[in-house]
């Protein structure tokens, strides 16, 4: 458990958008599982973290939600990426990349030394 991480709001939004981009419409449970698996279970998402993030994205118009039947015939709320969401994802990916590059170049010299 020691290597479990807390997710920050900003990065969580990016993960959600990316998940929906890759897998298409998905319910909250599916999103959570996918993120946990992708992080090789280093991240756990309790509801109090996941659902406010989903609602925020919905309020911003990046995703939209509707009730549907799930694959095993349960009713679940499915989230779909909107056109605005796609744009936001592209932008955030770019920004994330830049930040990552920046941090990497900061850390690089020390590793060389």
């Amino acid at each position, binding site marked *: 458990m020691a290597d479990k991480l807390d997710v920050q709001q900003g990065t969580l939004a990016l993960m959600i958008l990316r998940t929906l981009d890759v897998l298409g419409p998905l319910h909250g*449970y599916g999103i959570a599982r996918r993120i946990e698996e992708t992080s090789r279970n280093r991240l756990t998402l*309790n*509801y109090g973290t996941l659902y*406010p993030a989903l609602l925020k994205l919905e*309020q*911003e118009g990046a995703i939209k939600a509707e009730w549907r039947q*799930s694959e*095993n015939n*349960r009713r*679940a709320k499915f989230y779909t990426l909107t056109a605005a969401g796609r744009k936001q994802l592209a932008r955030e990916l770019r920004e994330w990349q830049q930040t990552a590059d920046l941090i990497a170049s900061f850390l690089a010299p020390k590793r060389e030394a």
Partner: protein
Amino acid sequence: MRQLRAALARIAGAFRTPDADDDMRAEMEAHLEMDVAENVRRGMPPDEARRRALLAAGGLTQAVETVRDQRGLPWVEGLIADVRYALRSLRHAPAFTTVVVITLALGIGANTAIFSVVRGVLLKPLPHREGDRLVYLRQSADGRGEQNLNFSVPEVRDLRSAVPAFGGIAEYSPWTMIYQSREGAARVNVGLVTGNYFDVMGLSPVLGRVTKPSDDGPGAPAVAVLTYDYWMNRFAGDSSIVGKQITLDKKSVTVIGVLQPAPFFPNRVDVLANMVNSDHHLSAQMVENRVHRMTEVVARLAPGATLEQARLQTAAQYARLQGQYKEVYAAASHYRIAVIPFHEALGERARLTLLLLMGAAGFVLVIAVANVANLTLMRGVRREHELVVRAALGAGVARLRRLLLAENLTLTLMGAVLGVGIAIGGVRLLISFAARYSSRASEIQLDTAVLGFTLALSVVVALVLSFLGALPREGRLASWIAAGARRVSGSVHKHRLQRALVTTQIAASVVLLAAAGLLIRTMIQLSEVSTGLRTEEVLTMNVTLLSPAELLFNPMADVAAKARYERMRRDVAALPGVIEAGIGSPLPLHSSQVAFPVKVEGKALAVGEAIPQAELRTASPEFFRAAGIPVLAGRAFESTDGPTSAKVVIVNRTFADRFFPHEDPVGKHIAWTGEILKFTPVTGDWRTIVGVVGNTQDGGLDAEPRLAVYQPFSQFLALGGGLVIRADSNVDALTAAATRIVRRVAPTAPIEQVMTIAQIKDQSVAPRRLNAALLSSFGILAVIIAAVGIAGVLAFSVSARTNEIGIRMSLGADRGRVQRMILKEGGVLLAVGLVIGVAGAFFASGVMRGLLFGVAPHDPATFVAVAILMLAIGLAACWIPALRAARIDPAITMRST
């Protein structure tokens, strides 16, 4: 964009239906079920599967709450909930709520109304372009008692060439003209202006154009710009007026535009016209005579120049002029020039009165808030139990404070709404009040700035109320809870606070009462001043047959006009009930614009003494009798004092006292004198004094009478003329008949100032009466609130001390003693408040010295009367709770403990 969309969604979310929560719960439960199913699929027993799933979920209810916060605006919702709660709890205390809301409404309403006036008249930026760069130039000569001499054209010319700090200097000469239309004639206030006037003033037309420098000079066509108010009132805002001809002084003038609404100084003006409209303004007298001062001067600071630079440069040039023209600027007259920001000049007459009223309104608010604070504190004591329970259940200090704030905000905002309602009514009255002091009165309105002020005031009051009382603090919570349902306070702090508040109320009331008392005495003193006329059964009306321009350039018109005046007089005198009718100008109790330097035969001026100026007035033989002005020595004019007979004058008492203190003035000779005569129809011949008449209060009841010299109406140009009609009784009833006669003789002449002496007198007292009335109503309001305050605090003290009083009584204190004890408690508060109040009033009344007449600012009689009044009302207020204390039955009290 994204933020905006999210914000909108959240605002919408704040008004969500409960469905949204159910929806979220359903979604989470679906999530949970899927998780459980997955765990089962992995081989866990169902119980374990559910336990693990719940663990991962991390608390469903908390999650729903977190989502709810994200969905809406939690603090707004919290506030709404608090306000809703506050409304509910206030509904359960209707008496408390009503008293508090009304008290606050009075305080807030008074401040809103007065502030709207202060803002409209003093604070609002001028409508002129860069109005803060405008200055007004004032020339005064204290030695001659002249506060505002205006300027002559040569003086303006000299200033214009020597003050680079002015980007432009414009001339504005107030003038009256007769506006002739099909419906009749009316006198209009005209501003004759130079072509650069509008550019300097930074004023634009709303229709057509304004004058330009090309409209200057004798060759330009006569044009006029209407002021906005005049256009609206006289022409009903008719936009086809531009390009039309109107008739001013019987000459045709083209209206070229309508000006934007703007305040004028010193007086309201109807029409602004170029100089060519007045022959006089093109004459050598106007253009060449250095002492012919009839021009107001406004200037605009040059870009980058400061007021200080303008003042220095102006002063330097003025000093040069004084050196160059020593005979014009006699040292004894103390000529001075001042450069005043235009907005200050506009507000100067109103400032003192308005600051006084604002201060008074402020005091009323302080008293009102103190009262409400007391009520809230008392209520707070009763609520301590509730607050302690809340604290024990986990509400932090901040949370409790917020609850109180919500409650107080609800109260003050209700008070503010009601207060604005009161202010709306008040502002209408105040506009007519302010119009006496400022031409900006029309700008007074309850605009957003004023309402913002009201809102800010309400919030501040709510904050003050919320932070006055103590709350159960975390550290002391235990002791609060330990005290439990029993009263926690009795708290010395709270008690002291209440007493301080009551003392403040009393002190503030005393200050207000003293100010009101001084103004009331001023008003009484003023209305007791004798007008100088023996009777009030006198009707006056001013009839202008000729404009100044017609008179100055047409001697024949003068003869004809005099004949018409005499016909009017004769016909009016023949009316039933009329005792006497006279002709003269100006009418009694109206000040004269016409004053000239005067000399007395055989009396040289002392070295350095300023040449005295006397008003020139005219009177027919019947004038003094008709007006009831007593002839103190010699005789009145007679019909033999005709245009060609010996030149005679009558002087007023001030004149006689000044020049002939120990001798008989009758038979002595005086003459008009000075450079200025060259340019006027007045001649410097010696004239014989044939009589002395009593002084009349022509400059207002509060003004010192000036030197006045009467010439026979027949021996001077009919520059003006008015009828003075004396009746045996009920002179009012004559108005219609007299007006009809004047109309018959002069169908188109403007008839003005149709007033009885009583009305003129009343008008002179009116502004003071309004001041007194306003301040008195504030004072009465304050005293009532303060009386309620002191009674309330004592009543509360009695109910808090019921036990103690019961014990005292059972130990042998009789009713009288108990009553005295409570009275003493109130008496101490009263005494302290009185002392502080009188000291405060002593200070405050010094500030209002300029508004008083006939009463010293520290008038002992007023102060004593106010103190006694306050004491009487205060003691009466203490009586009720004291009586109640005395009625306490010790047996019942002790048992219920």
